[in-house]
């Protein structure tokens, strides 16, 4: 059998392999390549003791904030995807996978934990396990760099920052004070905000412990954010939402950490008429933590396998398959105790 890839395609493919990693790592961008000019962190005007103090300072600078109406509120309609960030610059020298962990940025306990993650990533090529593998939501700050598709809906008194991962929805209350009626923390916490002309300034508190991403530092239940979101337009029609963020965490950071994240308009998805669907990781992911502490998968026929396109719990009724188009059946062994290698072939 002869595969007929052209030399041109092969050359382009090879070039991609050479170029892609360096392109992706430029500007300290480890998660998603940049679009538009390099991302530059804008540090806070002064050091603040807390995210709330930072927020109040900016609110006073903005004289209480801009009161937008339905016709004046900035519109960020459409679909967006992540387009790079600088968060690793804060934690790793050079901000790329060849760098060493910066000393003294994280508190000793968090620095030790991060060094082990970084060792796994840089020496073994992958961290052993990612908490998202058992379907935890990204949470904050990870929401800011997770892929999949995003929608940002602005109203005069509320904004909705949506990632279809999970899905994850951050609800921003404009002009409100923090509230915590549940008396506990959550994946996306409580976010208040105000508009300063076309900039949306956010303050988020009451968050679960999480992480920046799987090869990045972990965060504590005292992690808080101050974020400034703004849509910027560049030459050649590039639209980029830039998020200047300062993170506060008295357990994890020696002092606040700043980074810039970005989202670009997902023109390819819009052209394909893509729609954001509700999906749940629990029903479609087969990743799990194995007894060696590594990420592994349940395969069809093994105990624990989730068949996201199989039947509902009422298979005796017609029309209960979740894949009405192809209606293929994969083998299942509901009571099997251990993973098996004996996956017999099946007829579609």
């Amino acid at each position, binding site marked *: 059998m002869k595969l007929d890839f052209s030399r041109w395609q*092969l050359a382009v*493919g090879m070039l991609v392999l050479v170029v892609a990693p360096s392109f*992706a790592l430029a500007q300290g961008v480890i998660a998603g390549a940049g*679009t538009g000019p390099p991302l530059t962190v804008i540090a806070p005007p002064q050091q603040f003791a807390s995210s709330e103090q930072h927020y109040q300072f900016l609110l006073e600078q903005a004289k209480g904030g801009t009161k937008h109406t339905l016709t004046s509120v900035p519109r960020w309609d459409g679909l967006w*995807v992540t387009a790079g960030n600088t968060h690793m610059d804060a934690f790793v020298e050079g901000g790329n996978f060849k760098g060493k962990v910066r000393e003294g940025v994280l508190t000793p306990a968090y620095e030790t934990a991060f060094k082990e993650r970084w060792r796994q990533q840089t020496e073994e*090529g992958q961290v052993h396990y990612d908490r998202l593998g058992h379907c935890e939501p990204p949470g904050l700050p990870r929401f800011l760099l997770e892929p999949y*598709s995003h929608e940002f809906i602005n109203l005069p008194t509320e904004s909705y920052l949506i990632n279809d991962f999970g899905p994850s929805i951050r609800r921003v209350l404009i002009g409100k004070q923090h509230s915590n009626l549940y008396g506990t923390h959550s994946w996306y916490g409580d976010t208040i905000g105000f508009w300063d002309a076309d900039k949306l300034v956010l303050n988020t508190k009451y968050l679960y412990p999480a992480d920046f991403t799987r090869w990045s530092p972990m965060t504590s239940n005292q992690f808080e954010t101050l974020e400034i979101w703004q849509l910027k337009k560049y030459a050649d029609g590039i639209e980029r939402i830039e998020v200047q963020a300062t993170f506060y965490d008295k357990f994890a950071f020696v002092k606040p950490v700043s980074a810039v994240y970005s989202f670009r308009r997902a023109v390819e998805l819009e052209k394909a008429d893509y729609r954001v669907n509700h999906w749940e990781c629990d029903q479609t992911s087969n990743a799990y933590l194995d007894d060696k502490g590594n*990420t592994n998968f349940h395969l069809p026929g093994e105990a624990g396998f989730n068949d996201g396109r199989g039947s509902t719990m009422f298979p005796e009724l017609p029309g209960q398959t979740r894949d009405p188009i192809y209606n293929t059946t994969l083998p299942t062994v509901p009571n099997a105790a251990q993973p098996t*290698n004996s996956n017999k072939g099946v007829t579609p």
Partner: protein
Amino acid sequence: MKKLISSLSFVAAAAMLTASVAQAHHSFSMFDGKTQLVKTGTVVRWAFNNPHSWLYLNVKNEDGTLTLWSFEGSSPTGLIQRGITGDTFKPGAAVTFMYCPLRDGRPGGAIGWVKLDDGKSLNPADGGCNGNAEPKEPLK
């Protein structure tokens, strides 16, 4: 010149996708990303699902029996940007494919590239395997 511009656009798009898919939802430590194997098989199911897609294939063994193999691919949002959709791999279709195997030897892995019977080549890979790798002949 037009071809060059088109290919450079492809390079930029592929670079962005390579970076974004590598960010995906879990660690790829279960795959041997340095081993790239090529086989032929028949599509049983193409699960174009989040957080990752899965391509299930019947692969004929030396003794003539079939084994169901499972291969993880990128997320739908990543794949749509590469022109791959929910009906790209139809049940019953014959394909040649490259994959990076599961380290524990079970019949599965991370998908690399897939070549359809009509000669069209596709890259449904996520960060676990290199979908842009050079094509090779199937294993005997």
